[in-house]
């Protein structure tokens, strides 16, 4: 590639270097609130969500990754917050904590989805964490809480759509099994 072409290429595809403090500070200013909202949709506590979002930007800076654009950065932040929030609740579940604390009532509603009518949000998240493997929980909550399509989940998790479909089929089977057990127990 000659110099002119290279220069054109760089103009077309600018990159974001996340090892740069100024870049991270600018991104934090722009994206922190959305990242907190994402984490809070799972952990239901704004203080914990703010901590998760802060740690996510810290990790981003530590990783020093380069992204093609801000959209790709936010997708990374979104996924990292999603997983950190699940990890937090898994720890909470290990210590048998209930989901108490600062409730965010405005985020109670579950987007319309095939899972939306099974159980309410908190029970849904708790059930998912207790019954499913980490990648299954991640994929399932993208669909059930965030209203993503399988194609979107595949993009975010960097998997094929077929793999996502298989993960969600396993989730369905596990929840059917839970319902069967509950029905036979009652």
């Amino acid at each position, binding site marked *: 590639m000659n110099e002119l072409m290279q220069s054109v290429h760089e103009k077309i595809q600018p990159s974001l270097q996340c090892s740069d403090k100024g870049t991270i500070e600018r991104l*934090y200013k722009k994206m922190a609130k959305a990242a907190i909202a994402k984490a809070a949709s799972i952990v239901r506590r704004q203080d914990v969500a703010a901590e998760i979002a802060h740690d996510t930007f810290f990790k981003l800076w530590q990783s020093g990754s380069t992204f093609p654009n801000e959209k790709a950065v936010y997708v990374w932040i979104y996924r990292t917050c999603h997983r950190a929030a699940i990890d*937090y609740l898994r720890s909470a579940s290990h210590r048998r904590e209930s989901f108490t604390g600062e409730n965010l009532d*405005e985020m109670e509603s579950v987007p319309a989805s095939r899972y939306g009518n099974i159980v309410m949000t908190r029970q849904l998240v708790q059930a998912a964490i207790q019954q499913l493997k980490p990648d299954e929980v991640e994929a399932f909550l993208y669909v059930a809480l965030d209203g*993503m*399509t399988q194609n979107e989940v595949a*993009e975010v998790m960097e998997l094929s759509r077929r793999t996502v479909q298989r993960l969600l089929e396993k989730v369905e089977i596990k929840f059917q099994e839970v319902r069967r057990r509950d029905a036979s127990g009652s």
Partner: protein
Amino acid sequence: MPQDPDFSKHSRLSQHLALMDLADTPIAPEETADEARVIEAMVPKPLVLPSRLKSRPLWYLAPLLMAAAGVGLMLFQKPVREASPWTVKGAGHVQIFVEQDGHVQTLEEAGPLTPSARIKAEVFSEAPAVAFWGVSSQDGQLLQDPEWIAQNRMMLERPEKKFFTGSLQLDGPSEGESLCIMVCPMDMMPRLEDPAIFQEIVQTIASKALPDGNLTGCKNSCFQLRP
């Protein structure tokens, strides 16, 4: 890393992208109004990034030194009958960060801690593990409720590096506090649920002792916070 995914208009992520003017196709404001209200209500913490550690030539020797130490141990140590996975992997280290006066530094860099200093701890584990943290005084008194230690433990589900959620703050006069972080292999988790064994964890953290007995296989790292 996703390069440039095309998201539907209805997912939370699509709405976030649209609200930050990052979506390829804009979404009508009425469709994102609810999420916009939620986002607007969020209050971020001030972002604090530590100064990067300067690289020193000695770091490049670390793998060689580690390998030499490993060979030395293999040659001169008595064979262990039942080594725990944690010991075999020789894994894990912890790093303490201090946030004070608007700067984040490692504990070693930070110097004397001010009363407003916030302390965060990061654990790196090469195997699934559970980590506990607690602060004890110079005379071996635990400064938190044991329940706090149980509630603030952290699961490391896979080889990963993770911060404990939240931070610690020291107030009042110095009691010669030490922060101890105990990391145990995840497969010990069922035993650690036993109240008697959990009591041993609390005692070990309070006394800054080496884990033994039921806790063999765990590691307890203690850091002096204030003299």
